[in-house]
Protein backbone atom coordinates (compact mmCIF):
# COMPACT_ATOMS: atom_id res chain seq x y z
CA UNK A 1 0.00 0.00 0.00
CA UNK A 2 3.04 2.03 0.16
CA UNK A 3 4.90 3.04 -2.93
CA UNK A 4 6.36 6.22 -1.57
CA UNK A 5 9.67 7.62 -2.67
CA UNK A 6 11.72 10.51 -1.34
CA UNK A 7 12.15 13.58 -3.55
CA UNK A 8 13.69 17.01 -3.11
CA UNK A 9 11.37 20.01 -3.11
CA UNK A 10 12.66 22.29 -5.84
CA UNK A 11 9.88 24.86 -6.10
CA UNK A 12 6.72 25.72 -4.15
CA UNK A 13 3.63 27.40 -5.62
CA UNK A 14 -0.10 27.50 -5.36
CA UNK A 15 -2.51 25.83 -7.75
CA UNK A 16 -6.30 25.55 -7.33
CA UNK A 17 -5.85 26.90 -3.77
CA UNK A 18 -3.57 24.00 -2.89
CA UNK A 19 0.06 24.26 -1.89
CA UNK A 20 1.98 22.40 -4.61
CA UNK A 21 5.62 21.69 -5.32
CA UNK A 22 7.87 20.64 -8.12
CA UNK A 23 9.73 17.66 -6.70
CA UNK A 24 13.07 16.48 -8.02
CA UNK A 25 13.72 12.74 -7.89
CA UNK A 26 17.18 12.89 -9.35
CA UNK A 27 16.75 13.05 -13.10
CA UNK A 28 13.02 13.54 -13.24
CA UNK A 29 10.75 16.12 -11.69
CA UNK A 30 7.05 15.85 -10.99
CA UNK A 31 4.39 17.94 -9.32
CA UNK A 32 3.21 16.94 -5.85
CA UNK A 33 0.70 18.37 -3.42
CA UNK A 34 2.06 19.75 -0.14
CA UNK A 35 -1.29 20.18 1.57
CA UNK A 36 -0.28 17.68 4.24
CA UNK A 37 3.21 19.08 4.77
CA UNK A 38 2.46 22.81 4.88
CA UNK A 39 5.70 23.50 6.76
CA UNK A 40 7.80 22.11 3.89
CA UNK A 41 10.52 24.32 2.47
CA UNK A 42 12.49 24.31 -0.75
CA UNK A 43 15.47 22.01 -0.37
CA UNK A 44 13.80 19.60 2.03
CA UNK A 45 13.08 16.00 1.11
CA UNK A 46 9.53 14.72 1.21
CA UNK A 47 8.06 11.24 0.96
CA UNK A 48 5.78 11.28 -2.09
CA UNK A 49 2.87 8.85 -2.55
CA UNK A 50 0.41 9.17 -5.46
CA UNK A 51 1.35 12.80 -6.00
CA UNK A 52 1.14 13.84 -2.33
CA UNK A 53 3.84 14.56 0.23
CA UNK A 54 2.82 12.48 3.24
CA UNK A 55 5.83 13.14 5.43
CA UNK A 56 9.08 15.06 5.47
CA UNK A 57 12.31 13.06 5.65
CA UNK A 58 14.24 13.57 8.85
CA UNK A 59 17.90 13.91 7.85
CA UNK A 60 19.18 13.47 11.40
CA UNK A 61 17.26 10.27 11.93
CA UNK A 62 18.42 9.01 8.55
CA UNK A 63 22.05 9.59 9.46
CA UNK A 64 21.53 8.05 12.88
CA UNK A 65 20.15 4.83 11.38
CA UNK A 66 23.06 4.50 8.98
CA UNK A 67 25.57 5.33 11.69
CA UNK A 68 24.26 2.60 13.98
CA UNK A 69 24.60 0.00 11.28
CA UNK A 70 28.03 1.24 10.29
CA UNK A 71 29.07 0.71 13.90
CA UNK A 72 27.90 -2.89 13.62
CA UNK A 73 29.93 -3.28 10.43
CA UNK A 74 33.04 -1.80 12.05
CA UNK A 75 32.64 -4.02 15.08
CA UNK A 76 32.55 -7.08 12.85
CA UNK A 77 35.76 -6.02 11.18
CA UNK A 78 37.45 -5.80 14.55
CA UNK A 79 36.45 -9.26 15.71
CA UNK A 80 38.89 -11.85 14.41
CA UNK A 81 37.13 -14.70 12.61
Amino acid sequence: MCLGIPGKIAEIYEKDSLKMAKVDFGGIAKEACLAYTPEAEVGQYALIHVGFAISLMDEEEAQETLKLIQEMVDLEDEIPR
Partner: protein
Amino acid sequence: MDDLDFEGYTCPVPIRRTDTVILGHGSGGTLSRDLLNRLFLPELGKAAPRALDDSAVVTIDGQRYALTTDSHVVSPLFFPGGDIGRLAICGTVNDLAMVGAQPVALTCGFVLEEGLSFDLLQHVVASMKAAAQEAGIFIAAGDTKVVQKGGADQLFINTSGMGKIPEGVNISGANAKEGDVIIVSGTIGDHGIAVLSAREGLGFETTLESDVAPLNHLIQAMIEAGEIHVLRDPTRGGLATSLVEISEQSNVTIELNEQSLPFKPAVKAACEMLGFDPLYVANEGKLVAFVKESDAHKVLDVMKKAKYGEDAAVVGRVIGTGKSQVRLKTAIGGTRLVDMLPGEMLPRIC
Protein backbone atom coordinates in the same frame (compact mmCIF):
# COMPACT_ATOMS: atom_id res chain seq x y z
CA MET B 1 -14.88 -10.11 18.83
CA ASP B 2 -16.65 -12.97 17.13
CA ASP B 3 -14.25 -15.34 15.60
CA LEU B 4 -14.12 -14.58 11.93
CA ASP B 5 -14.66 -17.45 9.57
CA PHE B 6 -11.42 -17.98 7.72
CA GLU B 7 -12.60 -21.21 6.14
CA GLY B 8 -14.11 -21.43 2.70
CA TYR B 9 -12.47 -18.52 0.98
CA THR B 10 -13.91 -17.68 -2.25
CA CYS B 11 -12.50 -16.39 -5.42
CA PRO B 12 -14.00 -15.09 -8.56
CA VAL B 13 -14.47 -17.04 -11.70
CA PRO B 14 -11.08 -17.09 -13.36
CA ILE B 15 -10.35 -14.91 -16.33
CA ARG B 16 -8.50 -17.40 -18.40
CA ARG B 17 -8.56 -16.31 -21.95
CA THR B 18 -10.00 -13.21 -23.44
CA ASP B 19 -11.92 -13.48 -26.66
CA THR B 20 -11.15 -9.96 -27.69
CA VAL B 21 -7.88 -8.19 -28.22
CA ILE B 22 -6.76 -6.08 -25.29
CA LEU B 23 -3.87 -3.65 -25.08
CA GLY B 24 -1.78 -6.20 -23.22
CA HIS B 25 -1.62 -8.27 -26.40
CA GLY B 26 0.64 -5.61 -27.86
CA SER B 27 3.13 -5.31 -25.04
CA GLY B 28 5.50 -8.08 -26.04
CA GLY B 29 4.87 -10.20 -22.96
CA THR B 30 3.17 -13.56 -22.56
CA LEU B 31 -0.16 -12.22 -23.82
CA SER B 32 1.49 -11.24 -27.09
CA ARG B 33 3.03 -14.67 -27.34
CA ASP B 34 -0.31 -16.24 -26.59
CA LEU B 35 -1.89 -14.29 -29.46
CA LEU B 36 0.89 -15.39 -31.78
CA ASN B 37 0.61 -19.02 -30.80
CA ARG B 38 -3.17 -19.25 -30.76
CA LEU B 39 -4.11 -17.20 -33.74
CA PHE B 40 -1.27 -16.48 -36.11
CA LEU B 41 1.35 -19.19 -36.15
CA PRO B 42 -1.03 -22.13 -36.64
CA GLU B 43 -2.41 -20.50 -39.75
CA LEU B 44 0.44 -18.55 -41.18
CA GLY B 45 3.75 -19.93 -40.07
CA LYS B 46 5.89 -22.65 -38.66
CA ALA B 47 6.90 -22.27 -35.04
CA ALA B 48 10.56 -23.07 -35.57
CA PRO B 49 12.99 -21.75 -32.94
CA ARG B 50 14.10 -19.15 -35.46
CA ALA B 51 10.58 -17.82 -35.70
CA LEU B 52 11.32 -15.74 -32.65
CA ASP B 53 14.36 -13.96 -34.10
CA ASP B 54 14.06 -10.33 -35.09
CA SER B 55 14.09 -11.21 -38.80
CA ALA B 56 13.34 -14.24 -40.91
CA VAL B 57 16.08 -15.79 -43.01
CA VAL B 58 15.27 -16.88 -46.54
CA THR B 59 17.77 -18.66 -48.78
CA ILE B 60 17.58 -18.00 -52.52
CA ASP B 61 20.13 -19.67 -54.80
CA GLY B 62 22.52 -20.19 -51.93
CA GLN B 63 22.42 -16.56 -50.74
CA ARG B 64 20.78 -15.86 -47.39
CA TYR B 65 18.50 -12.86 -47.11
CA ALA B 66 16.90 -11.40 -44.01
CA LEU B 67 13.28 -10.30 -44.19
CA THR B 68 11.25 -8.50 -41.57
CA THR B 69 8.21 -6.31 -40.98
CA ASP B 70 7.08 -3.99 -38.24
CA SER B 71 4.21 -1.63 -37.57
CA HIS B 72 4.65 1.54 -35.58
CA VAL B 73 1.80 2.95 -33.57
CA VAL B 74 3.65 4.94 -30.91
CA SER B 75 1.84 7.74 -29.15
CA PRO B 76 2.71 10.56 -28.89
CA LEU B 77 4.11 10.78 -32.44
CA PHE B 78 6.86 13.14 -31.35
CA PHE B 79 8.68 12.35 -28.14
CA PRO B 80 11.90 13.60 -26.60
CA GLY B 81 14.77 12.41 -28.79
CA GLY B 82 12.75 11.14 -31.72
CA ASP B 83 9.52 10.55 -33.53
CA ILE B 84 7.55 7.79 -35.19
CA GLY B 85 9.45 8.26 -38.45
CA ARG B 86 12.90 7.69 -36.99
CA LEU B 87 11.48 4.86 -34.91
CA ALA B 88 10.09 3.15 -38.00
CA ILE B 89 13.32 3.24 -40.00
CA CYS B 90 15.63 2.36 -37.11
CA GLY B 91 13.35 -0.39 -35.85
CA THR B 92 13.42 -2.27 -39.13
CA VAL B 93 17.11 -1.60 -39.88
CA ASN B 94 17.90 -2.99 -36.43
CA ASP B 95 15.71 -6.07 -36.85
CA LEU B 96 17.67 -6.92 -40.00
CA ALA B 97 21.02 -6.23 -38.38
CA MET B 98 20.14 -8.43 -35.40
CA VAL B 99 20.39 -11.56 -37.55
CA GLY B 100 23.71 -10.38 -38.92
CA ALA B 101 22.31 -8.99 -42.16
CA GLN B 102 23.49 -5.87 -43.93
CA PRO B 103 20.27 -3.88 -44.43
CA VAL B 104 19.69 -2.98 -48.06
CA ALA B 105 16.19 -1.58 -48.59
CA LEU B 106 12.96 -0.82 -46.79
CA THR B 107 9.35 -0.35 -47.81
CA CYS B 108 7.02 2.05 -46.00
CA GLY B 109 3.26 1.88 -45.72
CA PHE B 110 1.41 4.82 -44.20
CA VAL B 111 -2.06 4.78 -42.71
CA LEU B 112 -3.11 8.41 -42.30
CA GLU B 113 -6.04 9.61 -40.26
CA GLU B 114 -8.26 12.13 -42.01
CA GLY B 115 -7.35 15.60 -40.74
CA LEU B 116 -3.66 14.91 -40.15
CA SER B 117 -1.61 18.04 -40.79
CA PHE B 118 0.74 18.10 -43.78
CA ASP B 119 3.25 19.92 -41.67
CA LEU B 120 3.38 17.09 -39.16
CA LEU B 121 3.65 14.53 -41.93
CA GLN B 122 6.49 16.47 -43.52
CA HIS B 123 8.41 16.41 -40.26
CA VAL B 124 7.96 12.68 -39.97
CA VAL B 125 9.10 12.06 -43.52
CA ALA B 126 12.15 14.30 -43.13
CA SER B 127 13.05 12.33 -40.03
CA MET B 128 12.73 9.07 -41.95
CA LYS B 129 14.99 10.41 -44.68
CA ALA B 130 17.67 11.37 -42.16
CA ALA B 131 17.50 7.99 -40.45
CA ALA B 132 17.69 6.15 -43.77
CA GLN B 133 20.73 8.14 -44.76
CA GLU B 134 22.42 7.47 -41.44
CA ALA B 135 21.78 3.74 -41.80
CA GLY B 136 22.88 3.73 -45.43
CA ILE B 137 19.69 2.19 -46.83
CA PHE B 138 17.11 3.31 -49.38
CA ILE B 139 13.32 3.22 -49.39
CA ALA B 140 12.37 0.99 -52.29
CA ALA B 141 8.59 1.12 -52.22
CA GLY B 142 5.73 2.67 -50.34
CA ASP B 143 2.00 2.90 -49.92
CA THR B 144 -0.44 5.40 -48.49
CA LYS B 145 -3.96 4.88 -47.21
CA VAL B 146 -6.27 7.39 -45.60
CA VAL B 147 -8.89 6.37 -43.06
CA GLN B 148 -11.77 8.35 -41.65
CA LYS B 149 -11.36 10.38 -38.51
CA GLY B 150 -11.13 7.96 -35.60
CA GLY B 151 -9.88 5.09 -37.76
CA ALA B 152 -6.26 5.56 -36.75
CA ASP B 153 -4.45 7.49 -34.05
CA GLN B 154 -3.19 10.23 -36.44
CA LEU B 155 -0.58 8.07 -38.18
CA PHE B 156 0.49 4.44 -38.32
CA ILE B 157 3.57 3.36 -40.24
CA ASN B 158 4.47 -0.13 -41.39
CA THR B 159 7.99 -0.85 -42.56
CA SER B 160 9.36 -3.98 -44.16
CA GLY B 161 13.01 -4.56 -44.73
CA MET B 162 15.42 -6.73 -46.64
CA GLY B 163 19.09 -7.40 -46.06
CA LYS B 164 21.90 -9.69 -47.12
CA ILE B 165 23.62 -12.05 -44.70
CA PRO B 166 27.33 -12.50 -45.44
CA GLU B 167 28.92 -15.93 -45.62
CA GLY B 168 30.05 -17.25 -42.26
CA VAL B 169 27.75 -15.11 -40.15
CA ASN B 170 25.46 -17.22 -37.94
CA ILE B 171 23.55 -15.13 -35.50
CA SER B 172 20.30 -16.31 -33.96
CA GLY B 173 18.51 -16.50 -30.64
CA ALA B 174 18.97 -20.25 -30.83
CA ASN B 175 22.77 -20.02 -30.93
CA ALA B 176 23.67 -19.10 -27.36
CA LYS B 177 26.48 -21.26 -25.95
CA GLU B 178 27.64 -22.02 -22.43
CA GLY B 179 30.24 -19.49 -21.37
CA ASP B 180 28.96 -16.76 -23.67
CA VAL B 181 29.43 -13.28 -22.28
CA ILE B 182 26.34 -11.06 -22.40
CA ILE B 183 26.95 -7.44 -23.35
CA VAL B 184 24.49 -4.56 -23.67
CA SER B 185 25.42 -1.63 -25.88
CA GLY B 186 24.42 1.07 -23.39
CA THR B 187 21.95 2.31 -20.78
CA ILE B 188 18.68 0.42 -20.45
CA GLY B 189 15.11 1.73 -20.45
CA ASP B 190 15.71 5.15 -22.00
CA HIS B 191 13.12 4.96 -24.77
CA GLY B 192 10.17 3.69 -22.77
CA ILE B 193 10.65 6.25 -20.01
CA ALA B 194 11.25 9.11 -22.47
CA VAL B 195 7.98 8.32 -24.24
CA LEU B 196 6.16 7.99 -20.91
CA SER B 197 7.41 11.39 -19.78
CA ALA B 198 5.44 12.98 -22.59
CA ARG B 199 2.19 11.21 -21.70
CA GLU B 200 -0.77 12.96 -20.15
CA GLY B 201 -1.15 12.40 -16.45
CA LEU B 202 1.66 9.94 -15.88
CA GLY B 203 4.13 12.40 -17.44
CA PHE B 204 6.97 14.17 -15.71
CA GLU B 205 9.74 16.63 -16.47
CA THR B 206 13.05 15.27 -17.61
CA THR B 207 15.93 15.85 -20.00
CA LEU B 208 15.94 12.14 -20.78
CA GLU B 209 15.62 11.36 -24.47
CA SER B 210 14.73 8.28 -26.42
CA ASP B 211 17.75 6.32 -27.58
CA VAL B 212 16.25 5.51 -30.99
CA ALA B 213 19.13 4.85 -33.39
CA PRO B 214 20.23 2.60 -36.26
CA LEU B 215 22.70 0.00 -34.99
CA ASN B 216 23.83 -1.70 -38.20
CA HIS B 217 27.22 0.01 -38.33
CA LEU B 218 27.91 -0.86 -34.69
CA ILE B 219 26.98 -4.48 -35.38
CA GLN B 220 29.22 -4.57 -38.44
CA ALA B 221 32.17 -3.53 -36.28
CA MET B 222 31.26 -6.11 -33.64
CA ILE B 223 31.03 -8.97 -36.15
CA GLU B 224 34.46 -8.06 -37.51
CA ALA B 225 35.91 -8.04 -33.99
CA GLY B 226 34.77 -11.42 -32.73
CA GLU B 227 32.37 -14.35 -32.78
CA ILE B 228 28.85 -13.16 -32.05
CA HIS B 229 26.27 -15.86 -31.32
CA VAL B 230 23.14 -13.89 -30.54
CA LEU B 231 21.94 -10.36 -31.13
CA ARG B 232 18.60 -8.92 -30.05
CA ASP B 233 17.21 -5.43 -29.81
CA PRO B 234 15.21 -5.30 -26.57
CA THR B 235 12.20 -3.27 -27.71
CA ARG B 236 8.75 -4.01 -26.27
CA GLY B 237 9.07 -5.97 -23.09
CA GLY B 238 12.59 -4.71 -22.50
CA LEU B 239 15.84 -6.53 -21.79
CA ALA B 240 14.19 -9.08 -19.53
CA THR B 241 11.80 -10.28 -22.21
CA SER B 242 14.55 -10.58 -24.82
CA LEU B 243 16.71 -12.62 -22.45
CA VAL B 244 13.86 -14.94 -21.49
CA GLU B 245 13.09 -15.52 -25.17
CA ILE B 246 16.73 -16.27 -25.93
CA SER B 247 17.04 -18.59 -22.95
CA GLU B 248 14.06 -20.53 -24.34
CA GLN B 249 15.22 -20.54 -27.95
CA SER B 250 18.68 -21.78 -26.98
CA ASN B 251 17.59 -23.72 -23.90
CA VAL B 252 20.24 -22.13 -21.71
CA THR B 253 20.52 -20.74 -18.21
CA ILE B 254 21.49 -17.10 -18.07
CA GLU B 255 22.86 -15.29 -15.05
CA LEU B 256 22.50 -11.51 -14.93
CA ASN B 257 24.36 -9.26 -12.58
CA GLU B 258 22.14 -6.46 -11.24
CA GLN B 259 25.13 -4.35 -10.21
CA SER B 260 26.45 -4.16 -13.77
CA LEU B 261 23.24 -3.14 -15.51
CA PRO B 262 23.75 0.40 -16.82
CA PHE B 263 20.91 2.84 -16.13
CA LYS B 264 20.58 6.58 -16.48
CA PRO B 265 19.53 8.19 -13.17
CA ALA B 266 16.32 9.52 -14.76
CA VAL B 267 15.26 6.02 -15.77
CA LYS B 268 15.89 4.69 -12.26
CA ALA B 269 14.02 7.59 -10.69
CA ALA B 270 11.01 7.26 -12.99
CA CYS B 271 10.82 3.52 -12.37
CA GLU B 272 11.00 4.01 -8.60
CA MET B 273 8.23 6.58 -8.77
CA LEU B 274 5.86 4.49 -10.86
CA GLY B 275 6.82 1.10 -9.49
CA PHE B 276 8.21 -0.12 -12.82
CA ASP B 277 11.00 -2.61 -13.26
CA PRO B 278 13.46 -1.02 -15.73
CA LEU B 279 14.33 -4.47 -17.07
CA TYR B 280 10.97 -4.48 -18.84
CA VAL B 281 11.07 -0.98 -20.29
CA ALA B 282 11.49 -0.64 -24.06
CA ASN B 283 14.71 0.35 -25.80
CA GLU B 284 14.98 1.50 -29.40
CA GLY B 285 18.70 2.08 -29.88
CA LYS B 286 20.26 -0.69 -27.85
CA LEU B 287 21.27 -4.26 -28.42
CA VAL B 288 22.13 -7.21 -26.28
CA ALA B 289 24.85 -9.50 -27.62
CA PHE B 290 25.95 -13.01 -26.62
CA VAL B 291 29.62 -13.18 -27.46
CA LYS B 292 32.02 -16.13 -27.48
CA GLU B 293 33.86 -15.94 -24.19
CA SER B 294 37.35 -15.56 -25.68
CA ASP B 295 36.26 -12.70 -27.95
CA ALA B 296 34.30 -10.73 -25.36
CA HIS B 297 37.09 -8.34 -24.45
CA LYS B 298 37.82 -7.39 -28.03
CA VAL B 299 34.17 -6.94 -28.91
CA LEU B 300 33.51 -4.78 -25.85
CA ASP B 301 36.47 -2.57 -26.75
CA VAL B 302 35.27 -2.09 -30.29
CA MET B 303 31.75 -1.28 -29.06
CA LYS B 304 32.94 1.39 -26.68
CA LYS B 305 34.78 3.13 -29.50
CA ALA B 306 31.80 2.98 -31.86
CA LYS B 307 28.86 5.33 -32.14
CA TYR B 308 25.92 4.09 -30.01
CA GLY B 309 28.14 1.71 -28.06
CA GLU B 310 30.00 4.12 -25.79
CA ASP B 311 28.32 2.90 -22.61
CA ALA B 312 28.53 -0.79 -23.47
CA ALA B 313 28.83 -3.09 -20.47
CA VAL B 314 29.08 -6.77 -19.62
CA VAL B 315 25.92 -7.67 -17.72
CA GLY B 316 26.00 -11.44 -17.42
CA ARG B 317 26.87 -14.80 -18.91
CA VAL B 318 25.40 -18.08 -20.02
CA ILE B 319 26.11 -20.43 -17.14
CA GLY B 320 24.53 -23.65 -18.32
CA THR B 321 22.65 -25.50 -21.02
CA GLY B 322 19.74 -27.91 -20.92
CA LYS B 323 17.44 -25.69 -18.91
CA SER B 324 15.98 -22.36 -19.92
CA GLN B 325 16.08 -19.89 -17.08
CA VAL B 326 17.14 -16.34 -16.41
CA ARG B 327 18.39 -15.64 -12.92
CA LEU B 328 19.44 -12.34 -11.53
CA LYS B 329 22.02 -11.82 -8.83
CA THR B 330 20.61 -8.88 -6.92
CA ALA B 331 22.69 -5.92 -5.79
CA ILE B 332 22.52 -7.07 -2.19
CA GLY B 333 23.70 -10.57 -2.99
CA GLY B 334 20.41 -12.43 -3.32
CA THR B 335 18.94 -14.23 -6.32
CA ARG B 336 15.66 -13.95 -8.12
CA LEU B 337 14.21 -15.26 -11.33
CA VAL B 338 13.45 -13.09 -14.30
CA ASP B 339 10.35 -14.01 -16.23
CA MET B 340 8.12 -12.47 -18.88
CA LEU B 341 5.42 -10.03 -17.94
CA PRO B 342 1.89 -11.12 -18.73
CA GLY B 343 0.93 -7.84 -20.38
CA GLU B 344 1.42 -4.14 -19.92
CA MET B 345 3.36 -2.87 -16.96
CA LEU B 346 1.02 -0.86 -14.76
CA PRO B 347 1.99 1.94 -12.41
CA ARG B 348 1.36 0.73 -8.90
CA ILE B 349 0.48 2.42 -5.63
CA CYS B 350 1.45 -0.48 -3.43
